């Protein structure tokens, strides 16, 4: 799976309240509606700036805070194709795998806002086309790659009815 798009840059400790505020998430299960508010407490114009296929690029501990799955779902529904960060908070990490949002752990200091990136998830390589450098990534464990490649945990359960990692 190869992804191409532009970088939108954020700092460390972007928490789930910033990704999608509690004041929106309790109101609805309409993820397209929630997507309009994604990251708005950090950047009010974020949703309008994003083009389909773009990336969120952040520092350490992205997705810390609550277990709200609305966070990855709002990102997916804003047409962001992957999140790149130096590290991710654990529950958010699981939620992304389960909902089918690709995550890339790498040195994001090598990416600036607006850089064009090409990501090969299977090979685990991020290519910064603007700067013409390859950035190595931490590969995903096999279990997670399997769930992700099946399109998320819902698809996995639809297929097997339970966990199946044989």
């Amino acid at each position: 799976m190869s992804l191409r798009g532009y970088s939108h840059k954020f700092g460390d400790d972007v928490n789930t309240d910033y990704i999608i505020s509690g004041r929106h998430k309790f109101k609805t299960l309409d993820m397209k509606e929630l997507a309009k508010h994604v990251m708005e407490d950090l950047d009010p114009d974020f949703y309008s700036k994003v083009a389909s296929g773009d990336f969120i690029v952040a520092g350490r501990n992205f997705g810390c805070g609550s277990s709200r799955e609305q966070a990855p779902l709002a990102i997916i529904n804003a047409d962001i194709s992957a999140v790149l960060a130096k590290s991710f908070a654990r529950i958010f990490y699981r939620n992304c795998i389960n909902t089918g949002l690709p995550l890339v752990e790498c040195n994001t200091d090598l990416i600036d806002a607006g850089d064009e990136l090409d990501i090969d998830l299977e090979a685990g390589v991020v290519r910064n086309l603007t700067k013409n450098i390859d950035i190595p990534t931490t590969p995903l464990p096999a279990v997670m790659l399997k769930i992700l490649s099946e399109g998320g945990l819902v698809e996995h359960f639809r297929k097997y009815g339970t966990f199946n990692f044989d």
Partner: protein
Amino acid sequence: MKIISKEEGTGLGKTIAEKILSLKSGVDAKANDIVVADLDFVMGQDGTSPLAIQAFQEMEATKVFDPAKIAMVIDHSSPSPLQGVSELHYQMRQFASQQGIFLYDIGEGVCHQLMPEKGHVVSGDLVIGADSHTCTYGAINAFSTGVGSTDLAAGLISGKLWFKVPETFKFIVNGTLPPGVYSKDLILYLIGDVTADGATYMAAEYVGPAIDALSIEARFTISNMAIEMGAKVGLMEADDKTREWVENQSGRPFAPVTADSDAVYARIKEYDVSNLEPQVAKPHTVDNVSPVSEVTGIPIQQGVIGTCTNGRIEDLRIAASILKGRKVCPGVRLIVAPASRQVMLQAIREGLLETFVESGAAVVTPGCGPCVGTHNGVPSDGENVISTANRNFKGRMGNNKAFIYLASPATVAASVLTGSITDPREFIK
């Protein structure tokens, strides 16, 4: 059950996390292994259950694995402030009655208070909850951790979940907490020290004489905030106090799990809290912690006492002892949200609610109260709030132009009396 991926073992002893995940998966698992393990209890709240119910349907399931091991709690927006929320609550009630699972409706309390209080969780258990503060029950020696709605749905259907066995960060806490300094101050101090991602992907184990000296209620406050240092779970050993407490709450048999003396830890840090001051986390991160002396005098407009961190009877007693016979400062609001119906009843019996109401507090429905910004006390622009909750992120209480300080019930009570952040020891003789 087999190990999904296996790291080279050290052949040495095991941590509490490794032992519980080994027991529940039926394999000899060590840190960084990935296992599929059996769940003892599964919980969802009203912010996460509706999506889980949707995922349950999308997964084409019809029945939960065991209704006696599942609860849903309506606590986050409770009672419902909006029609949209009411519809989601309705879905939860429908699902619960169709499946025969436990449903705790409005006024019953915060999920993390209810799970141990109602005896659903005992020592040695493996528990998931679709709420990040599910780590709370580590205080009674349960491996309990927060997950999202799709994981919750998978748990509802299969009674299982995959886990990466975490490495463990051991906190040895020596000394004795001075008067006026509580377990909330202790955990804020530890978070400030190791930072918000200091224990990411890890289990925390809290041990030592200062932990042993705490009541079970005070221990819950510490494990509750393990997630604020990034940890997956905040484990403690079970001692006589734990056994007695768990036996009182639950009829279920249980087997506490202890760490081996030669267990392998990723990190160990040792502290002495004998000279610890009350601590305050400043806006907008939980690890932005100072001793109260550095923030004394900062004006506040609202105080909150409650939440899954500090809404238990012991917390209400501490706050009431400071508020008794005194009045909340004019221009300041105090909101009190008992953690559960049982806590509220006990507070009524002890006269604590009378003290709160007389002092000028607004007492609200047991539940999350204003913690997560859906209702019950959203601050206005530029206001400062001092709260006993566990998060002070920008926008957390429903307004991203407000400022949230986190502290112990004693510090919040003292601060609403003076109208600015105050060292509670001024009111404790």
